[in-house]
């Protein structure tokens, strides 16, 4: 059975997602000892990042780079407000249309599909390999500052279904997993209809929504019908947080924004646990330090 990680990395005007994926690929190799890593990107992103980091550096980290065509209409239409703490925000294209193609693209029997900004600082995801469950993803998440509880991240709407996080998805090449990804694709292609039924807010296309709807449908129209990953929680920070430094191996020091005093921070040392860092500029600022800590 082959096993590997899969990431999607399409740059926009400000955020070098392929650089994030490259750094994360080095972290995966170091912590999970998995060397089969596929990244899906586009020609513009590839050319830019290879120009910045060097071809050898990128290809040393990523064993398989898949170049796809970008849907320019989708890119123009799907804009998201990116934040670099509460002090700076920018609307930028959020190109996430092809995540439902993960099943078709993955060359592995067992795949861990992760976000490029879900930094792998431990080997805990290795417990997925060879699992009885053929598809797993989490609805349970925890902010690393536990008192910042955001109820809008728990359900698609106040009276709606539980929200699953498409940040980390484990799947095996089985009929069920194939049908699951076809359902995600179907939801993506019929967004207006499913938004009307499931009542998720806003106009932004988010994979968390389409994966949650697919999980509800494929779970037999039962809430939380798809099993979670064999890790207690997914840990996350907000884009209003910042990263102070990466002082040693698998360690990050965060500035966490205080919930009742916006723009004011406390420090947190986070070590040896995977974490979703939502402030992409922050990762970029400590990327050199992060790479120095990798053997």
């Amino acid at each position, binding site marked *: 059975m082959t096993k590997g990680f899969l990431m999607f990395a399409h740059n926009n005007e400000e955020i070098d997602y392929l650089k994030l994926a490259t750094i994360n690929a080095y972290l995966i190799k170091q912590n999970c000892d998995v060397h089969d890593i596929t990244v899906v990107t586009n020609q513009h992103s590839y050319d830019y990042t290879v120009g910045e980091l060097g071809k050898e550096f990128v290809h040393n980290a990523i064993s398989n780079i898949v170049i796809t065509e970008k849907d320019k209409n989708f890119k123009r239409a799907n804009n998201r407000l990116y934040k670099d703490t509460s002090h700076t925000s920018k609307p930028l294209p959020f190109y996430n249309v092809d995540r439902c193609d993960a099943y078709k693209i993955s060359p592995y029997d067992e795949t861990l599909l992760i976000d490029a900004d879900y930094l792998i600082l431990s080997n805990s995801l290795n417990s*997925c390999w060879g699992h009885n469950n053929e598809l797993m993803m989490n609805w349970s998440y925890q902010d*690393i500052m*536990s008192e910042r509880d955001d109820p809008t991240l728990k359900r698609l709407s106040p009276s709606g279904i539980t929200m699953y996080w498409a940040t980390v998805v484990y799947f095996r090449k089985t009929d069920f997993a194939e049908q699951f990804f076809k359902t995600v694709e179907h939801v993506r292609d019929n967004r207006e209809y499913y938004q009307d039924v499931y009542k998720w807010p806003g106009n932004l296309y988010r994979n968390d929504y389409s994966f949650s709807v697919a999980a509800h449908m494929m779970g037999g129209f039962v809430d939380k019908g798809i099993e979670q990953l064999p890790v207690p929680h997914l840990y996350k920070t907000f884009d209003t947080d910042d990263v102070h*430094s990466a002082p040693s191996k698998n360690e990050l020091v965060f500035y966490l924004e205080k919930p009742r005093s916006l723009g004011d921070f*406390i*420090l*947190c*040392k*986070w*070590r040896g646990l995977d974490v979703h860092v939502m402030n992409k500029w922050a990762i970029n600022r400590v990327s050199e330090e992060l790479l120095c800590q990798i053997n």
Partner: protein
Amino acid sequence: MSSKLTKALEFANYRTTLNVQHNALKAKVQTLLSYSTNGGTFEISHELISFVKMLIDKEYSNAVLLDVYQNPIMVDNLNDFLEEILSRYFEAVNEYHAEYTKLKKARKVHKLIDIDIDD
């Protein structure tokens, strides 16, 4: 601002940071106490350790155990399984103890985070 109030705010900041660091430690221990084998996942708890030891004392060499998903998982060698979960348990709690002791001694924010104040 009076020095009394400044000190109170500093202390509040210290307590919040201490709480966040303590939660980070708990999160790590919780993750380390999750053990996957034979396609199932177990939470290494006192209950699991005692139950497996009881099975071994009753001279079972293998058994089907329910994992965290309530799926039945065949454990072929209970002795090896017990050894593995005990080893993981002590690795996790010993690390927790060492880090927790350091936290308890730290009385300033920069010591809790273990960073140089001149940075």
